[in-house]
């Protein structure tokens, strides 16, 4: 097991307000266009961003381009980590359902562009949470 290699990171700025942070697959895929080595591509079946480890140089242009600052790096991995939806059967959803929390589920990707609103750095989401619940 390797917690920091997980494609999902959970932040918690306020007690009881966990913020799951992961790729939401923007319709315009700014990370893919920003990659100078063409290491990133879009999975035609799931819409997930795929990383070719042999092409990634860890230049982090994708992080710069990402509105949510999602791609992550960790020691021992020579490429960025982006949620690949486990090829349509995400392990996180399986695990969450198995323990009965049912906080995560797989849905069909919406066709509108509103989804992009969900791509936010965790501190911004936390701020919204904070205003609603904790102020």
């Amino acid at each position, binding site marked *: 097991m*390797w*917690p920091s290699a997980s494609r999902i990171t959970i932040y918690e700025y306020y007690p009881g307000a966990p913020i799951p942070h992961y790729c939401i697959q923007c319709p315009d895929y700014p990370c893919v266009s920003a990659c100078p080595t063409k290491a990133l591509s879009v999975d035609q079946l799931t819409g997930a961003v795929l990383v070719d480890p042999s092409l990634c140089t860890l230049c982090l242009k994708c992080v710069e381009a990402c509105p949510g600052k999602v791609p992550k790096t*960790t020691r021992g991995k020579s490429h960025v980590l982006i949620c690949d939806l486990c090829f349509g059967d995400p392990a996180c959803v399986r695990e969450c359902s*198995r323990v*009965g929390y049912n906080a995560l589920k797989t849905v069909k990707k919406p066709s509108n562009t509103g989804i992009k609103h969900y791509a936010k750095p965790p501190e911004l989401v936390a701020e919204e949470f904070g205003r609603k619940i904790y102020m």
Partner: protein
Amino acid sequence: MQIYGSWGKLLSVDLSAGKTSEERIHPITYRMFVGGRGLATYILWRELGKKWGSVDPLGPENMLTILTGPLTGYYPGIKLVVSGKSPQSGGVVGSAISSHVAYSIKTAGYDGIIVRGASRDPVYIYVRDDLVEIRDASKLWGLKGLELTKSLRSELGRDAPSLYIGPAGENLVRTAAVMARWFHAAGYGGYGAVMGSKKLKAIVVEGSGPLPPVARRDEFLKLRYEVIDKVAARSTFRVWGTTSGLWRVGHDTSSEPIRNWVEEWHNREEFSHVAIEKKYWIKNPWADWGCPLACMKVSKAVVDGVTYYTDGPDYEMGAYLGSNLGLFEVDKVIALSALADDLGLCGIQTGNTMGFAVELYERGLITREDVGYELKWGDFYCLKRLMEDIAYRRGFGGVLAEGTYRAAVEVAKRRNLPSEEVLKYAVQVKGIGVGAHGIRSRKDYPQPIAYAASVQGGDHTSVAGLPADSEESEISSAFLDSAVVCSFTSVEEETVLKFLNAVTGWGVTKEELYRTIGLRILSLQRILLLLGGPDVRWDPRVHDDNPLRFYEPLPSGPYTNSVVSRDEVLNSIAEYYKQLGWDSYGIPTEETLRKLGLYDAVDVVKTLRRELGVS
């Protein structure tokens, strides 16, 4: 020698010298002491055992150990064990706490952190994999939990798992806890004060590697799901957490502390999980990393325009900062629990001392002249003030900051009374306030000898019981705290053992657990507890006993007049010690020590017997 489940390596930090290094632990040592509480006991014994009696728990000679176990990160539930020489008991207390630091330590490549010496100025330890720094904490010193968490986040630029102390630890309050994630506390033992004595405000650990390899991966994965399924089915914990104890223990089993344990029963429906959920919970379930149980619930209450957040209140906080203080207004109990969290106080130990103080006030053993204000059952304002006075050692708070036992001795001295005259109201065993599960109704889990014969005194998470080779025995808790497994996510012992063997490749049997490994840990803990010092020394003939209050019949509720007798307790203790291979004083026999491979303890025990006059 290949090792699984652990790295065989600890991070060692010397705060006096300002130096850090790595420390190897031999695979055989793990096989003998497992990890967590067991490994802490071994390390403390090895390094301080010879001079134990003279080591000041709040001096630079003491060590602070932060240890994981081979099951940390693998077994669902994420705990680590804080230890050292306890400023409460003078022995070794394995103080378990749920914290993300547990998996961070392992993914940074260590099994634990050992802190020696003391810094002159406030510091915090920052670990990111191989990078280890002792950093200036002068701007963090003095901060309470909520402020500190924010400041650390802005200093580091992100959230990072941390252990820390509040003002109580800084002020060397003996009931101070080591804290994590706002509301989590390693309370028993008083290790917040040990951190404070080292001028160590926080330990921040970020690990980015994988967990150490496991011996039998397929078997481990199978067992992991077996445990997850079992634990996820514990719906009472999931839905109500331990808060349900406020009704189950307070009303049904009649074993909840009420007004310093004068009573153990209530029938106040407003003081129950059902009432609390509706009005106060803003997040349920709430859990730490990888936990399939989620016993935690975040509550919010507003008192006099101030907003307070805490966990639960879980059963122990509700009991000790509520009913034990005669306070049944939930919003105010939440406020006291939140305040204890923020000040970095153990709610159990501090609630125990506060209840004791209110009773002394009621009996006229302390007065307004001593305290500076009136102490009354259920009066939130004086209780809040008293808690703050303890955390900052203001006025009479300075006496109570020494914990129930030492405060009792001090009050007796000031009143020119024999100490027994005040100690009879102190509901503690060997310097440690008794957890919120009474023994008089006999309907709750602790046996009549649970605390009297425990190597961790009043600790309700490490209770003694007969038979000595069953899960009733304290060996069972010693094992869980060594492996390290949370007692709420643990399942039947056979499966936990299989789990341990799949991860470590050891092949530990139940017999080995009870007759060798667990007994070895417990025996060393018992010896160090009896060595004690420098300001307390426990005599088995006097102190292997219950607080006197537990020999008073219950005055109310369905089990009115129920009681335990001292004869029964002493007889059961004798039987328990016999089964463990200890003598009638609870001192491990020479034969037992040799069988356990504790040869260097043989002479120490001889001296101990001579000093007690029982050789």
